[in-house]
């Protein structure tokens, strides 16, 4: 579906992403990992067609920069980190915006019954149907995240790009979101690329992992192979085993016979 071949991109002629190559196939849930500032969000933006790039970045065989915005949006949706909004859109109207490309064609915009059905289904899935008339300016961060997720689903893309989607979500919704994405991506012609900070979630749901460091791919492959203690320690500059052991010691009761008192 998506091919990156020696891709370079960034801002103001300075490359943040350097020589990145990988492929995404149908059904993939791919996780981008790496320390802050390593270029994960920049890479997602390039895939979404928001940044110019060098090299080859192809969606269904066509270079992304040659596609029009509506062609790209019909295939790829980006759910970015929560953006500030000054205007009091209702939850329903916000999700309905995701139907932009599917709306009835005419001089004035109109909403079809299919649009209404899709929006209702998406809002029920994220458990916000009852709050549909609430202004989004009054929602919590987690609720807003779920609104944007519903909007992403009603766009009916083939590839969903997620930039730290579990931020602001409590544990229940984090797990539900990942389950939903898992089910969604298993339908024909679909895939997910996500930037996650939570390594546990990444290990549980992603089948492939790409680790970026300073804009370059340092490792990619199946999740189990890539997410080894030594690699995490190297990239994130933390001693994972030591950290985990000290956390466990703090909270778990001492084993019988090992008490030194």
């Amino acid at each position, binding site marked *: 579906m998506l091919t990156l071949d020696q891709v370079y991109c960034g801002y103001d002629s300075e490359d943040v992403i350097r020589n990145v190559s990988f492929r995404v196939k149908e059904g993939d849930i791919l996780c981008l990992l790496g320390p802050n500032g390593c270029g994960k969000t920049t890479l997602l933006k390039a895939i*979404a*067609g928001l940044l110019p790039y060098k090299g080859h970045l192809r969606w269904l065989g066509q270079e992304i920069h040659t596609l029009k915005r509506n062609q790209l*949006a019909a295939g790829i949706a980006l759910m*970015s980190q929560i953006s500030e909004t000054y205007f*009091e859109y209702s939850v329903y109207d916000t999700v309905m915006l995701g139907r*932009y490309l599917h709306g009835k064609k005419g001089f004035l915009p109109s909403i079809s019954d299919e649009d209404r059905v899709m929006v209702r289904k998406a809002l029920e899935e994220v458990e916000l149907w009852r709050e549909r008339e609430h202004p989004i300016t009054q929602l919590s961060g987690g609720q807003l995240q779920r609104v944007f997720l519903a909007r992403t689903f009603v766009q009916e893309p083939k590839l969903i790009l997620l930039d730290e989607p579990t931020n602001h979500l409590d544990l229940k919704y984090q797990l539900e979101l990942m389950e939903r994405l898992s089910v969604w991506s298993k339908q024909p012609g679909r895939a997910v690329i996500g930037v996650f900070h939570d390594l546990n979630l990444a290990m549980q749901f992603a089948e492939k992992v790409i680790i970026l460091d300073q804009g370059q791919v340092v490792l990619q492959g199946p999740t189990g192979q890539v997410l080894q203690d030594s690699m995490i320690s190297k990239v994130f500059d933390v001693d994972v085993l030591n950290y985990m052991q000290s956390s466990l010691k703090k909270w778990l009761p001492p084993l019988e016979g090992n008490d030194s008192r």
Partner: protein
Amino acid sequence: MKNSSKLGGMITLSLLCFLAAACIGSVAIPAKEALAVIAQRLFGISLLRDVEPLTQTIVWDLRLARASLAFLVGASLAVSGTVMQSVLRNPLASSYTLGVSSGASLGAALIIISGFSLPIVGAFTLPLAGLLTGLLTVYLAVAMASRVDKGFSGNTIVLTGMVFTLFVNALLTLVAYFFPNRTRHILLWQMGSFALKDWGTVRVLLPIAIVGLLFLMRYARELDMLTFGEEQAAVMGVETRRVKWILMFLAAALTGSAVSFAGVIGFIDLISPHVVRRWVGAAHRWVLPLSALFGGSFMVLADIVARTVISPTELPVGAITALLGGPFFLYVYFQKRRRY
């Protein structure tokens, strides 16, 4: 209450404002007679037999022509303000921020001091010059902003617009300084007035306002998406750069036309979208038509006050919009806020 009912309510209120404009003035005219004149002129129906010709002239040719122009100007300014606030994601933005009014004022001032008149358009030379220089100022501001900032962000456009406004205002001050005998004329034009306007002016502005509003309604969803930021709009399929240019041109053309016929009238474009958003939410398919109706009605009421409060002398309507609009805006804004 559903938004469609609110729209119906606002249309009724607008019609009542027109009726008030027809009845209130130095000569009070009963509503029955005013309605009879309107029915006669619009539909050829004779409701009353003995309406004097003078009453007919006052209601139709003087008051309703003036009220119609006030309504169109108010509606154009309000819609234009709505669009600018959404496109630039700045609740304080308006076409004025981008230099429409200062550009139009400079163009008008140059026509006033030179006494220049185009052969075919004649009396419309002044508004035409105002419109074109207003549009030119916005074009230069936006073109400059897009060169400086390839991302074409709202803040850059607002900042560049403000710099252009200050620059053009400085030129205007110089013009006024070097031609002191024309200063009063320029100042009066800038204050805004609907005095001595007839149906001819309405006929010129009406198609511009209708076409502008219809095209903006076509872009209602794009406007919604742009309020969430350009990146979000782009990933949902909006050609943001092209759409922003179109929307800003339409908004500037609406303000430019309104300003060029009535002079500079502030505040309507700022308050109307805020008041309407508080009432019906932010979706532009409702905000645009309701802003037009609210802005138009508000302007008609402001003009009634301007021409009656110290009759027979008229006050500048721009001062009235700010005097009435300021406290009203604060009331609406904080009244709603207290509920949350």
